[in-house]
């Protein structure tokens, strides 16, 4: 099981501070939800964690080792943030096989693992001869999520996994995440705008605002109504 530690992590875009986290520890095997409005710094945090952007200062560590300039975490980390993770000119099946091969999973094993996700992927994302760039946003999302899950990662990082998905798929992904976390002890970091889904499955909710952690709650001890109240407050008055 994998732990994460973030210390004094700061990222600026020009004059603006996109993320500034003094300290955050993610326990091994936990399922942590990152919530916040647009621009709160969720994706920036994930990009820093996956060493896709360079911080101004601070440290993100996975399994006690800094991720910056290191590869050690890649072998056990599954991640999907956005379409930049997909190889548009491959078909989904080719993409899965390519990703699996990079993780040393045999073709036969890949096929077997993919069978488990056939229902979630559906016909278009699972078996068509279309390339990924020809898929709808929802199907692209499914492909990205399955590619992250099928390697059976010890750490899973998903940014807005419920986006673009139909209601059935949203329920399926919620169940899958819960099941994998429970059975395999996978450490998970998931961000979403859908507060209900996260509060249902997460054992910890971190609320970001303008790059800073403003609430860190652990249900059922903490009242998640606080988070809901926060968003209601942020919404302000309804538009006329």
């Amino acid at each position, binding site marked *: 099981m994998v732990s994460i530690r973030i210390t004094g992590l700061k990222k600026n875009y020009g004059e603006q501070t996109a993320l500034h986290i003094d300290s955050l520890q993610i326990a091994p095997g936990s399922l942590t939800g990152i919530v916040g409005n647009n621009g709160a710094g969720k994706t920036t945090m994930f990009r820093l964690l*996956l060493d896709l952007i360079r911080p101004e200062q601070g440290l993100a560590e996975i399994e006690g080792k800094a991720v910056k300039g290191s590869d050690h975490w890649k072998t056990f980390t599954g991640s999907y943030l956005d379409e*930049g993770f997909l190889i548009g000119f491959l*078909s989904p099946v080719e993409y899965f096989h390519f990703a699996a091969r990079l993780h040393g999973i045999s073709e036969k094993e890949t096929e077997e693992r993919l069978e488990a996700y056939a229902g979630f992927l559906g016909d278009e994302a699972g078996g*068509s*001869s279309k390339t990924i760039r*020809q898929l709808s946003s929802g199907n692209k999302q499914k492909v990205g999520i399955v590619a992250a899950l099928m390697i059976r990662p010890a750490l899973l990082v998903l940014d807005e996994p419920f986006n673009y998905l139909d209601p059935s798929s949203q329920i399926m992904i919620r169940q899958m995440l819960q099941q994998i976390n429970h059975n395999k002890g996978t450490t998970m970091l998931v961000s979403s705008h859908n507060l209900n889904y996260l509060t249902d499955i997460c054992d910890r909710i971190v609320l970001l605002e303008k790059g800073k952690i403003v609430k860190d709650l652990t249900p059922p001890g903490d009242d998640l109504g606080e988070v809901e109240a926060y968003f209601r407050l942020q919404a302000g008055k309804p538009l006329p």
Partner: protein
Amino acid sequence: MYLTLIRHAWLQFSRAHYFGRSLGVKAIIAFMALIFLIYLYALGGSLPWLLLRFFPQKTAVDALFSLLLYIYAADLLTRYFAQKLPRQMIRAYLPLPLPRPKLARFILLRSWLSIYNLYLFALLLPFFVRTLYIPVSPQAFWLAMLCCFLLGGLNHAIVIWLKSWPGVAPRLILGGVLILAHVVPGALLFPQEYMQFSEALGQAFVNAHPLAFALPLLAIAALQWLSHKGLKRTFYDWAAEDARPARTAKGGMAGLLSRLPHYGHLWALEWKLITRNKRARSNFVQFPLMLPLLLYLLYAADRESVVGFTPLIMMFLGSYGLYHLQFAFSWESGFADFLATRKISTTAMIRARYYFYAAMAWAQFLLLMPFILWLNPGIISLAAGLVLFVTGPVFAMLLHTGVANSTRIDPNGRSFMNTEGVSGRLFITVILVFLSIVPVYVIAFLLPLPYLYGISLTTGGAGMAFVLGSRRWTRATALRFDRNKYHQLNKYRQSQW
């Protein structure tokens, strides 16, 4: 409506993320284009003198007319490969309540605003001023200019018609047939008669023969009408481009490559990239059409002309890789984050790419070798030396400098005239590629060997050194790439469309 469409075209051009990049280099390119036009203009002014040297028994005008069809055949060839149909952004308009015929007309009208419809005027205008306007009559001058306009217009109409057809295969076949229709009689079978016909055609124009004007004019009108019809049909293809399943069947070359050990999966990925990426594929499938030209150059090259021919021969001997590696690290724009989060060694990726394109160049050379031995056996050592040179220092230079290329565009998504991907680094690299042969000439000149063998030896030697040292320089390139990792990823991210 047309004005709105033109404005939108401008906005697409000026709001592209790379618009403001490398403006200095773009200014240099524009300046060089201007110099080129001035050079053409000066050449046109001195053309009468040059022609009279080669054709002393003819007048300068008749000599030029005898070459007119050759000039426009070369123009057709250039346009066939380089001139594009200005089709971008049209897809976004198709679902809107805009009449399709109007869109088709807009594309056709806009296509006339092309540098290919101008550059020959820069050459021929001063020539006809000196040979017709002053000594003969202004009327003869204007008729000659109209002749140039009609012949250029005919080429334009042919190319646009070909490019407005759906599908690549008919385009390739028809284009090939049209080019061969010039090349076979003109260069191979009846060059004398071809030149006589060309001269008669030019004279018919200057003598205001009605048919000389009517026939090309009718042909242009017919081709434009066909293009308009074709475009309306092609719109459906463009609209359904993303919905059409691509050929992603298992097996084939990609399957074969993926079964190879070590770099197999990366080679399979590279193969899929060049066969499925729109821009890469169109260049890849058109490349074989250039091979007859390569064979002709190798056939025609002798001791005297080899120095002038070498850069051109080198370009073709590098095969498709010489083009592809100019954008060495741009093709991954769409999946850079995937690569950065997987345990893939950058060295392995760069090596796989290098071996792939080097092998392609060598495979091409081996395929052409029997033809070269048949056409001009004396040139074989030079050709082998040049393949080594391209797959050695030239590929190394493209990969190494490609790391710092300041644009990471999606080579698929490009905007008209934005010279996308032409960063300062790439611009200089391409110039360096062609200049890299100069030191080889100098060393060859100093060697106590016949010049041709001297060049073969120096190109071969330099090439061999880089091929044998490829593990070393690929590692250095990878290190350089990794050192700039965040900068690279940022560039990729900025280039998302």
